[in-house]
């Protein structure tokens, strides 16, 4: 760490001496970064307001410079987020774009299930908003780009047998089963080879055993997960080829795969009535799934 910091200082000094203008730009850039704000509803967060909170609660994993290399990081899997990259899994915005302030705020409050990121209940709303600004100040992407436009989520339609059945067709057609498995047990043919953006092995979500998702628990969260994708993981965005009403059908079907989830009983009752069985992806050629 010390040599890193030393080399950092040397680099700063050399650059400051050699090229005056970029250094000035960077000083300006630095000042801009400390001015980073977040806006969540009526709350305004300030990066400077989170200096103490970050050092107290976040630095151990996410590190002093926000690169996810805090002293605990070596023991953790999945690894803490590297904030300097400006890339986040849980977003309401399209793949390849920055999340909204609210997305980051929700992640702090919710935590990330199956990881070491807890839900930060003890922090006040203002402290969380300040932390959002602090998280943003680590990456220059927030000064050069705006957050993406949140995807449209229409009101959830009534749960019907027809929609659940249509969702089953989508599950097959979109090949969700390739990773998540035909019963949602995370054992599809591609499941074993998946890696994240750091080339570390990563598991698909197991619908059968799990109830909470990485990015929330509600039907809207589930909708968002497959429509935005989880950037930095193998989970892609399906927004280009799935209409919002189809997305709701898929949500309804996915809920039938979750016996461990005490909620969503209506979907499960419908699944029973329909006598839904795990799909057989090889039964019919994928070109004509709904010919009759």
């Amino acid at each position, binding site marked *: 760490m010390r040599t*890193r910091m*030393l*080399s*950092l200082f*040397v*680099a*700063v000094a*050399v*650059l400051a001496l050699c*090229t005056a*203008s*970029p*250094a000035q*730009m*960077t000083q300006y*850039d630095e000042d801009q970064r400390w001015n980073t704000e977040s806006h969540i509803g009526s709350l305004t967060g300030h990066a400077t307001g989170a200096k103490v909170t970050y050092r107290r609660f976040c630095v151990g994993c996410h590190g002093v*410079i*926000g*690169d996810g290399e805090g002293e605990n990081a070596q023991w953790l899997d999945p690894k803490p987020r*590297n904030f*300097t*990259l400006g*890339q986040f899994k849980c977003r309401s915005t399209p*793949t*390849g*774009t920055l999340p909204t302030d609210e997305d980051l705020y929700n992640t702090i409050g919710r935590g990330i299930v199956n990881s070491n990121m807890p839900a930060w209940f003890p922090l006040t709303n203002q402290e969380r908003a300040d932390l959002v600004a602090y998280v943003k100040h*680590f990456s*220059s992407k927030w000064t*050069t780009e705006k957050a993406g436009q949140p995807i449209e989520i229409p009101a959830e339609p009534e749960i019907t047998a027809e929609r659940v059945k249509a969702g089953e067709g989508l599950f097959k*057609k*979109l*090949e969700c089963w*390739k*990773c998540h498995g035909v019963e949602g047990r995370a054992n599809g*043919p*591609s499941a074993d*080879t*998946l*890696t994240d*953006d750091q080339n570390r092995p990563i598991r698909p979500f197991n619908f059968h055993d799990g109830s909470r998702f990485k990015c929330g628990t509600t039907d809207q969260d589930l909708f968002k997960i497959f429509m935005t*994708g989880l*950037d*930095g*993981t*193998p*989970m*892609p*965005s*399906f*927004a*280009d*080829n799935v209409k919002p009403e189809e997305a709701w059908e898929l949500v309804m079907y996915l809920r039938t795969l979750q016996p461990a989830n005490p909620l969503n009983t209506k979907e499960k009752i419908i699944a029973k009535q329909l006598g839904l069985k795990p799909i057989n992806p*090889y039964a019919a*050629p*994928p*070109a004509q799934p709904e010919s009759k």
Partner: protein
Amino acid sequence: MNVGSNQEKDPMTSRFKLTGIMSALLLVSVAALYSARGASAAGEGKITGTIKLDGTPPHMKPIDMSKEPSCQQIHAAHPVTLENVVVGANGGLQNVVVYISEGLSAGAAGQVPSETPTWDQKGCQYIPHVLALDVNQHFKVVNSDQTSHNIHPTPNPAGTNHEWNKSQPPGAPPFDVTWTAPEVAVPVKCNIHPWMHGYMAVVKGPSAVSDNNGAFTVNDVPPGNYTVTAWQEVYGTQTAKVTVAAGKPVTADFTFKAK
């Protein structure tokens, strides 16, 4: 400690680099406004050459597509291998990107070709395996297979280009895509089919990718003195200096050494 420490991939230093790149981009775009109309096609030359591999090419592992029967069938007669090093007749090295790394006027560098090349997913392979593109050039991502692919480019996270990841089921319409910053090269993968791997080389100005004989032609190069860079995904880069005269081809050959 020396100046070399600048090269370190520290977030701080990349922040400096970014600022530099951003200001350079700004300069280039301003300059382009003034000189873009100055370039005319008639007086332009080209750079041609051959790229060879010196030594024994490494063994390319055959790809086992048994987990994707629809693709395995396509290759039943001619099983395919990985494509990291593809050597054709007489040691010609395929899939090498050749581009002008120094010397282009801002006007020439800022011109964006109107052609929209295709990045196809066919038989669970990327066709082409390496695609050269201009910054902001539109191109199409196509799925010709009977299976879903997820197209997942992973550019350098410290740079300006964003990683994205989209599913493309069979029969889905093509994606229209651009890259906003130069990067040689953006790796592309499909997580569903882990053997699928390719590169998009994003450059400013004219470029070419060598064919199966290792031959390439960089067209529409305005007269001038240039540094030409050849990039290969395993062997890295090589450079050469060339002087392009109006209407004439100039030769630049490259030889990579097998490791």
